[in-house]
């Protein structure tokens, strides 16, 4: 049996850290200096404080990262002034792939030519001392958004820069982003990240971790996303993380979103408590539609408005927002700030004091909860005594199977489609260990829809691009 354990912390972290930060691009980070810097940050820079002060309205977080320091400085201020509650720092793809040399060269070229040759902020190339300057006078949490399988150095530099929220995880930053980065190594590297967040935390001001639940954002059934989120919360808790947000992406069905939010909140708490992690505070983050966006700006705005209302209906702690230019590429600072303003307006206007419910939502929630419980039960019951290894094997066995992941360790046996409510249904479960009853119910719900197209692949394409 491989249950998560309170005594599974990575050993020898101090020496391991010295090894990681001996990299020249760490620019001589001193762990004492990092501790002092964190201790002197305003309290409001920590997510726990921001979440505690949010009142009944979800916190709002845009995305945003540009290569040049000056431009990032402006973007940070514009987003903050527009009312963002969390300030993003999105990292460029070369840094995510640990290609620091290339990132640095392209940063220099961007500086010389005044053109952007990177799709994000190359944090390691800029270094922690300069990056600290980005956030003087900012009293909101800064969130590291990336997609890095090996984020050990990146996270050291981020925390040294005063970044207090680290997104990612061994599964959610590997399966959707990489075709061949070994999943077992990725899980181990993220143990390091979790442990480093934990050792940099104080009791009331922890470094906060967040998982990325949308995954491939392509017909991922809620049961799969939720099981992975809970697994990542448990893996982080094993390393001593005490502040963790689970998340999921808008499914395309309001009923399913509300049900998924309810089950995710309940089960995350349930499993953390069950394995002795009562001290971990958990939060729910909702991502606005992560699939293909319409290129028309009015339609894009309509999605943004609709999903903001849903985030209210599920009482999300935070909503991560898109912009009306999503289909067109990296948005300008103005468009990004405008999105933040729109979302805040909607949240203020259509606030929900309590999570919304209905008999349909109850049915959906019962089904999702039963499926997640079966999947997690099968993982916990695997032979072996190390939880992360079972998680790794769960992918090899196809117990966890993420639709449309490019990764070689993903089984690709599960097939999902939309039912007539737009909810994502499992039409072929592959090796995912949900019960026969649940599998039959999924198929029955799917059958209630009139299949309009003669070939299932055409239906799949329609279901994937449902918002376009």
């Amino acid at each position, binding site marked *: 049996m491989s249950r998560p354990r309170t005594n599974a912390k990575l050993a020898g972290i101090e020496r391991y850290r010295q090894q990681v930060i001996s990299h020249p691009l760490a620019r001589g980070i001193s762990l004492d200096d990092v501790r002092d810097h964190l201790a002197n940050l305003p309290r409001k820079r920590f997510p726990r404080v921001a979440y505690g002060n949010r009142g009944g309205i979800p916190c709002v977080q845009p995305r945003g990262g540009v290569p040049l320091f000056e431009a990032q400085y402006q973007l940070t201020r514009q987003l903050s002034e527009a009312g963002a509650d969390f300030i993003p720092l999105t990292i460029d793809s070369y840094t995510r792939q640990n290609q620091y040399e290339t990132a640095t060269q392209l940063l220099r070229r961007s500086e010389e030519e005044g053109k952007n040759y990177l799709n994000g902020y190359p944090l390691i190339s800029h270094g922690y001392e300069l990056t600290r300057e980005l956030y003087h006078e900012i009293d909101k949490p800064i969130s590291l958004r990336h997609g890095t399988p090996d984020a050990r150095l990146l996270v050291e530099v981020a925390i040294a820069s005063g970044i207090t929220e680290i997104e990612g995880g061994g599964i959610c930053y590997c399966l959707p982003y990489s075709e061949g980065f070994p999943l077992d190594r990725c899980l181990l590297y993220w143990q390091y990240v979790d442990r480093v967040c934990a050792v940099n935390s104080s009791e009331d001001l922890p470094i906060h971790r967040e998982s990325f639940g949308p995954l491939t954002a392509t017909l991922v059934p809620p049961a799969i996303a939720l099981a992975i989120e809970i697994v990542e919360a448990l893996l982080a808790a094993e390393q001593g993380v005490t502040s963790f947000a689970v998340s999921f992406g808008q499914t395309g069905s309001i009923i399913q979103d509300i049900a998924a939010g309810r089950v995710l909140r309940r089960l995350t708490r349930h499993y953390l408590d069950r394995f002795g992690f009562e001290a971990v505070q958990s939060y729910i983050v909702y991502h606005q539609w992560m699939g293909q966006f319409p290129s028309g700006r009015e339609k894009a705005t309509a999605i943004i408005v609709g999903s903001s209302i849903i985030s209210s209906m599920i009482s999300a702690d935070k909503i991560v927002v898109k912009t009306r230019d999503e289909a067109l590429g990296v948005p300008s600072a103005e468009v990004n700030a405008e999105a933040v303003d729109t979302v805040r307006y909607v949240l203020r206007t259509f606030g929900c004091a309590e999570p919304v419910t209905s008999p349909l939502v109850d049915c959906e929630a019962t089904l999702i909860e039963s499926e997640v419980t079966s999947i997690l039960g099968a993982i916990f019951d695997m032979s072996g005594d190390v939880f992360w290894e079972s998680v790794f094997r769960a992918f090899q066995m196809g117990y966890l199977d993420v639709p*449309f992941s*490019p990764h*070689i360790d993903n089984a*690709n046996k599960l097939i999902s489609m939309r039912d007539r409510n737009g909810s994502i249904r499992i039409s072929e479960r592959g090796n995912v260990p949900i019960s026969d009853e649940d599998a039959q119910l999924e198929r029955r719900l799917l059958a209630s829809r009139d299949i309009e197209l003669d*070939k299932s*692949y055409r239906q*799949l394409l329609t279901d994937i691009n449902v918002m376009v």
Partner: protein
Amino acid sequence: MIIGVIGDDVHVVGNRIMQLALEESGFQVFNLGTRNRPSHFRQAALEVNAHAVFVSSLNGEGEYWCADFRRQFADVGLGNIILYVGGNLVVGKRPQEDVVKTFKSYGFDRVYHQQRDIGVAIADLVEDLKHVQATYQRETRGN
């Protein structure tokens, strides 16, 4: 048949849909997934004795990787294999007939540039593989 995405492209959605669509039409598909070099297609075609190879590219890297594609197959005795290519084949906007001409010169039998529906290619494939189907049926009748 062999399918896969060429270059360092990891766009996997179209690739998975292609596999489902081809299987639904009765093809036996060996899917190489993403990030393939021309030699991967060649090796796979040799290994499974494929009748056809269908290369895809979404980010436009196809043009760089596919030059000389037919010759690479000819080198290992597969000069007559059916070669298809489809997707977003070049970077930037170029006239359809230019793109088709370029890829035909690389040795592809059929080229689908920015063709939205895979159904068109599947119909062509059924047509182009008619003789294979006939041979296969003769063989099975003989058994």
